[in-house]
């Protein structure tokens, strides 16, 4: 079966996650070899994911970790809050 572009778009996310069956994966790859449009969609989607994984894109507030551990230190100091084993 010859895949058309719309078929390929439907599988882009699963393809990126490596969760399409091998035969389908091969077909998608054959399509990508000659289709600039789908290749560009795939590349740009991957680029977005790379950028998402870059810690500078989504940053933690300054001092977040210190405040979090400060809060936990107060919590841990209070015996009444000891974890229950129930």
């Amino acid at each position, binding site marked *: 079966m010859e895949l058309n572009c719309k078929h390929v778009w439907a599988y882009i996310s*699963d393809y990126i996650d490596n969760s399409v069956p091998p035969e389908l994966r091969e077909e998608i790859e054959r399509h990508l070899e000659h289709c600039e449009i789908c290749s560009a969609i795939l590349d740009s989607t991957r*680029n977005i994911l790379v950028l998402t994984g870059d*810690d500078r894109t989504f940053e933690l507030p300054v001092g977040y970790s210190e405040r979090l551990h400060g809060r936990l230190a107060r919590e841990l100091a209070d015996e009444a809050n000891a974890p229950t084993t129930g």
Partner: protein
Amino acid sequence: MATTERDEAGLIARILAGQKELFHELIRPYERMVYMTVFSIVRNETDAEDCAQETMVNAYRHLGKFRGEAKFSTWLATIAVNEGRQKLRKAKRAKEDSLDEPSEGDDQQFTPAPLTDWREIPLEALERKELREALRTAVAELPGIYREIFTLRDLDELNVAETAAALHINENMVKVRLHRARMMLQKRLAPYLKTTAPAKKEFWRRMPWN
């Protein structure tokens, strides 16, 4: 999420046996994941930080209930999602996004891929601040159900099963929503990504979103 191999079960046992200071160490790898998860739900820094603290405090108080059937990170993500949603409800601004009916039948096998082998992005594009800003804005403007999925899968790097557990939905719905979320972002950000592709003007005019 990606963690170095460490003996979390052992750490947890020691905390429960009284070495409670070790809790700081236990949660350190997950500080970012917890914050990003609650931020994707409450959408402002102050509430997100409150929720992140509440998540960790609750995890501490209920640590004895963690049985180890799930990974600790998944358990923590589940608490974070619940904290975030509770905060939203309390603030009475829970505009629940309607649950969409996924139409795609998709019961394929899946193997979650770690986000490590995608290095083909041109370096200079990654360095562009406006692209990062555009991505933040685009994610913030996604409908809630898609923002949560995208955050847990692609930012927190939970796998499909962990994401499904944290959000109390099935794995197929995770995949369907993730696909839609990624495609929405791709469409939204395509204009910014143009310069990274080896393309002619004519080529971009043929792209499906034009």
